């Protein structure tokens, strides 16, 4: 589904990603962990199509298409979804209109009619329930004045509405209390299917108690320096990252 090969990216002449290799297959859950500033958010931004980053080397293939060649909106329509580490507030745009526009833009590009209002609303209802939002935020401006936890739930709500093929969750668990964490994890698990895949970026092994990863990768200084199973997350929690950095240097 996703094939990242030797990806290098920089911003303002600082190289942040220094040769990432990663393959994600349908149905898989990958966790990416790593110290602050190692490039996790940069990787997700590059995948989502943020213009500020310059890709200097490497390739990314998504469902057989050259992802790097696509505009951000086209990537989203093709099924890439990024849950932002810092969701953006958009005053004056209601949550519900925002989602309606997003869904109908994607449909229009596929030559479909706008989604009937009734179908849209029942989908909103169903998905909001999934993340414990139950119509609470529909008429409020996107993320405006939302608490940190509410913003994260709203990201998962949007994901549920848009039904992506590849979801990248950038620290969706940080700032969540344990109940919210369960709700979010539950939401993600319910949306899992053999056809879609998830990349979970996190600092905390506790999320991985709920979203069980098939692989855990450690990103350090712009490279994936170690890959393992879910037990690697536990080890990281106990031992920190230093031993891996050393391993990487010695290797």
């Amino acid at each position, binding site marked *: 589904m996703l094939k990242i090969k030797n990806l290098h990216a920089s911003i303002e002449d600082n190289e942040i990603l220094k040769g990432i290799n990663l393959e994600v297959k349908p149905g898989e859950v990958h966790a990416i962990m790593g110290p602050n500033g190692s490039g996790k958010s940069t990787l997700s931004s590059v995948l989502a199509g943020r213009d500020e980053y310059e890709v200097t080397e490497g390739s990314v293939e998504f469902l057989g298409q050259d992802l790097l060649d696509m505009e951000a909106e086209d990537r989203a329509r093709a099924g890439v979804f990024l849950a932002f580490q810092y*969701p953006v507030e958009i005053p004056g*745009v209601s949550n519900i209109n925002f989602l309606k526009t997003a869904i109908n833009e994607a449909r229009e590009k596929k030559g479909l009619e706008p989604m009937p209002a009734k179908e849209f609303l029942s989908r909103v209802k169903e998905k909001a329930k999934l993340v414990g939002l139950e119509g609470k935020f529909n008429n409020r401006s996107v993320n405006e004045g939302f608490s940190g936890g509410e913003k994260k739930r709203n990201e998962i709500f949007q994901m549920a509405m848009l039904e992506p093929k590849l979801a990248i969750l950038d620290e969706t668990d940080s700032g969540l209390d344990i109940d919210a964490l369960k709700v979010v994890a539950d939401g993600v698990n319910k949306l899992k299917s053999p056809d879609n895949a998830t990349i979970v970026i996190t600092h905390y092994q506790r999320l991985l108690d709920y979203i069980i990863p098939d692989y855990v990768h450690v990103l350090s200084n712009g490279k994936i320096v170690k890959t393992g199973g879910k037990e690697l997350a536990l080890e990281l929690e106990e031992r920190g990252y230093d031993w891996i950095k050393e391993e990487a240097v010695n290797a």
Partner: protein
Amino acid sequence: MLEATVEMSQKDKFLSHFGMIDFSFDKSPFKEKRKEAEDRLSNMEFPTSKTEYWKYTRVNKLIRQEYILGEQELSSEIDLGVPTENCLVFINGYYSEELSWTKSEEGIDFMPLSKAKEGNQPLADRFDQLSKKEEIFSTINSAYHQDGVFFHAKKGKLAESVYYVINISAGEKAISNPRNMVIMDEGSSAKMIFKNLSASEGYSFTNQLTEYFVGRNANLEVNKIESESDEAFLISNDECQQDESSQFKINTISLSGALLRNNLNIDLNGSHTETWMNGLSLLHGKQHVDHHTLIHHREPDCVSHELYKTIADDASTGVFNGKVYVHPIAQKTNAYQSNANMVLTDEAAVYSKPELEIYADDVKCSHGSTTGQLDEEALFYLRSRGIGQKKAIAVLLNAFLSDLVEHIGVEHLREEVQAVIDEKYSGVK
């Protein structure tokens, strides 16, 4: 032989445009008011680059031009498309009976000013009281105005219809001085729309003045739509006086025209009044739009809200100068002012100058002014959800303007303005 050549001054040249108009229809006291204005003019000059009040708006190119007194009829058809029962249409300052229609409503006078001048006492009592005697364009209007609308809501009358006034500048080089009077008696309420349109290409100049008397406990909403040709000049003076416990809202919607200058002056003459001054300017090309507002809080316990927003595209220029003056006696004044501007290109600019002069101590006044570009973070967020670049920009601009659109209290007009916004920004780069 000696030949005396007298160079005509720019002002005299400009004023000579009006020498042809026959004002003999005016009787007392209107005749005298004209004469007074004409006399004042002899000692006045046009603003220069040194005149603070006109700092960002040069009138030179406007007064240098040759003008002609425009036709009183339209040479081509125009679709006014106005869904209301009451509409008076003026062409180059002259009343067009043919294009106007009215449905009389008990307790409302709605007629051409020229007709009201024939003996309407409330008009005679108030005429030209509010115009700024030291302002040259107002004075020109007072001296040489043609026709305009007279609207009077009698005591306690709540107008059912929306009252529409359309001024059309027609024909190249047309110049006109439309003049309006609105009187709201105690406890009355009404909604009005004033629209400026062009019926032809080429430059034109409209110099209009409206006086609003909003009586005790009365409520008036005025919507001004400026939608002229891309070469048109428009100077608009709006003078309002509010009595105790009255409410006045004015929405100025500036859509097109080469140079639009709006002077809005409000005098709060009684306590417990509420005022809304709103401006929505959508600029393109080389447009220049200048809003100067001044509100005098002369009595205690009054509230004023001011919200002006501009989107400046291409190489356009916006100006906002909003002055709030709180007199010593005006305790418990609440005055809120906000000016927000969005500049879409490097060549566009908006100059913003809030001026607060506060001489009372127990007041709540706030002002804020922001000028910026589209929020790139928000834009990326929208795009990352599959909303295309153009649509995403339109969504953000719409959100920026939405509170102003909501202020328009006439539904069909709100929809009309929304449609203009949608059309204008559907194709933004």
